[in-house]
């Protein structure tokens, strides 16, 4: 059963066909996923206040029902260190088609993974794990399973990745917290089962994984037509 707040978000997002990032993150935090601290601002004053509350450096992203792929319209700016850059960024992003605000979020670091879901016609919700970031469709280093998943399935998915060594510590880099990653994948598969009637596909990309935790840095939820 979906929580009431979540149903309300889906209701409101129906006209766009997808859920805007701040709402998607709200859904995820309601279900216990870790997300970076964030605020949404439309004016200079709001932006500066939000950024100071979170603490520089921050990342700024366009919020617009017309922009599904933010990077494609240069709608993501990382590493903003001061008020001046932030205000300049707001001025530029506010000119983008459908501007509905600027999301300001804590900068998180880690190994970039993608955790996704697709509502398959024949098999229902399928869960995807792969190397994330903007290169996801270039490297295509992914593993797929039918939801819902058990911890063992999540384990197999990690083992299937060509880049699995990057997760377990490669050339002196710290290994990521595999338990946290498996928990994220399994919990996400259950959330997808709950959302299967309304959701077509989901990209959590990137999910930032470190030795400590897995944080969903961006989320896109596409709704069924």
């Amino acid at each position, binding site marked *: 059963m979906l929580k009431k707040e979540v149903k309300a978000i889906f209701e409101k997002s129906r006209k766009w066909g997808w859920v805007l990032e701040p709402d998607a993150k709200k859904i995820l935090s309601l279900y216990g996923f870790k997300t970076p601290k964030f605020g949404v601002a439309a004016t200079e004053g709001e932006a500066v206040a939000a950024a100071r509350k979170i603490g520089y450096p921050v990342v700024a992203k366009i919020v617009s029902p017309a922009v599904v792929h933010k990077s494609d319209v240069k709608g993501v700016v990382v590493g903003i260190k001061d008020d001046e850059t932030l205000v300049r960024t707001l001025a530029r992003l506010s000119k983008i088609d459908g501007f509905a605000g600027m999301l300001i979020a804590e900068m998180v670091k880690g190994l970039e993974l993608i955790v*996704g879901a*697709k509502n398959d*016609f*024949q*098999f229902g919700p399928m869960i995807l794990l792969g190397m994330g970031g903007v290169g996801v469709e270039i490297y*295509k280093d992914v593993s*797929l399973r*039918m939801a819902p998943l058990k911890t063992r399935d999540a384990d197999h998915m990690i083992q299937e990745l060509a880049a699995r060594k990057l997760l377990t510590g490669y050339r002196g880099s710290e290994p990521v917290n595999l338990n946290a990653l498996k928990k994220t994948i399994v919990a996400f598969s259950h959330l997808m089962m709950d959302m299967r009637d309304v959701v*077509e596909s989901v*990209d959590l990309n990137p999910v930032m994984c470190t030795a400590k935790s897995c944080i969903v840095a961006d989320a896109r939820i596409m709704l069924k037509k």
Partner: protein
Amino acid sequence: MNLKPLFEPKTMAVIGVSASNDRHPANVIYDKNNHRYPVKVYAVNPRGGSLHNETVYPRVAEIPAKIDLAVIATRAELVPDVMADCIAAGVKSATVISGGFSEGGRGDLQDRIVDMAREAGLPFIGPNCLGVYVPFRVDTFFLPIERMIKPEAGGVTFVSQSGGILVDHMIKFAQQGVGMAKAVSIGNKAFIREKELLAYLAHDPATKVIAYYIEGFGEGEGREFVQAADVCSKPVVIMKSGKTAAGNRAVSSHTASLAGDYASFAAAVAQHNIIEAVSENEMVSFCEVLSSYTRPIEGRIGIITGSGGHGAMAVDACSMAGLAVPEFSDQTKTDIKNQLTESVRAIASLGNPADLTGSAVDDDFVACARVLAASPEIDCVVVLLLPYIPGVSLDIGVRLSSVCRQSGKPFIAYVPHVEKYNMLIEGFELNGIPASSSIEGAVLMAKALARRQSC
């Protein structure tokens, strides 16, 4: 839903026989079953009369017996009426051979017969199919008897959305010595689908391996099928076509683009302990080996060969298939060496593959096989047997299978398949060792055993 009358009918009505055209599908089906199979066959045509001096009944209801299986081969528009007759007469199962339903834009006609059958609880196969073939029992394929290639009776049941692919595999199975339990062509699979057949075949004593050729599942149907296959104690093998069709559909999320229809299919199938055959070659090899051996292996292969080249080819194929070919320990090498004939001992190289050379005789193959059968270093033996080696006799198959049976470890043979070597090949196959006609095929068999997970 009871499918037994469909596969083991005692009485059968063939509906739609022609008085004038003996090549009409219904006539072919009537003729090939009448007096040939242990089933009483009745011909039906609204005009009545007689066919080959036997009565043609105007309606199913007028047949003086309860009908287990009705084979419907009339024009599509007439099928709903015929089905109503069958239901009224208490027919227990049907196959609708006729085409001209959803595949020809008449989904409405198909929906009508499905609704009728569902309400009446009449299981039917099709429409637009060949129906069922069960060795020594029944054959509803409208292929003239002299044109059919029938494999030996055996353990594989093949269920296919395509009749043509099914008949082709019967030919391949016959060529390769793979025995069949049943062949089922499900066509438009309007009512009985893969899942219902799985439920029946899981408990069918004749069926050891369940093989499917699948073009696609309906909405959510794939999920139900793989979950059912996962808990089935028999190996399930699937071959899929249409892997590339939906690849270029525009999608707006990365996941939807990466988790395309076929990628999702392959992942869901593998996750649920179903063995996917990606080619016809794999299909035949997998079916053959899984009807011989049920226990899975980890995939440590010991290779015995009479030629270095064959050994090297097999090692490459194993490596491609994700199988290990571990170097034998010194102890194992010594054990083999001590038992070889003197002339071979001096020239054999025993790393893995164990290359016994073209000078080897039966005793060398058997001695080497005994050591490997007992060795914990490997869990499957692949024998590359060249019948043209002068020291190899016709007895080699039966002698090696005796070693295989005693050890309980799976043996797989490669023997070139030409008529001249048939008795040698049968020495393997009739004694339980699957023999492939190619090195690659033999390795694919080992791969199938390694894929199969224990339940």
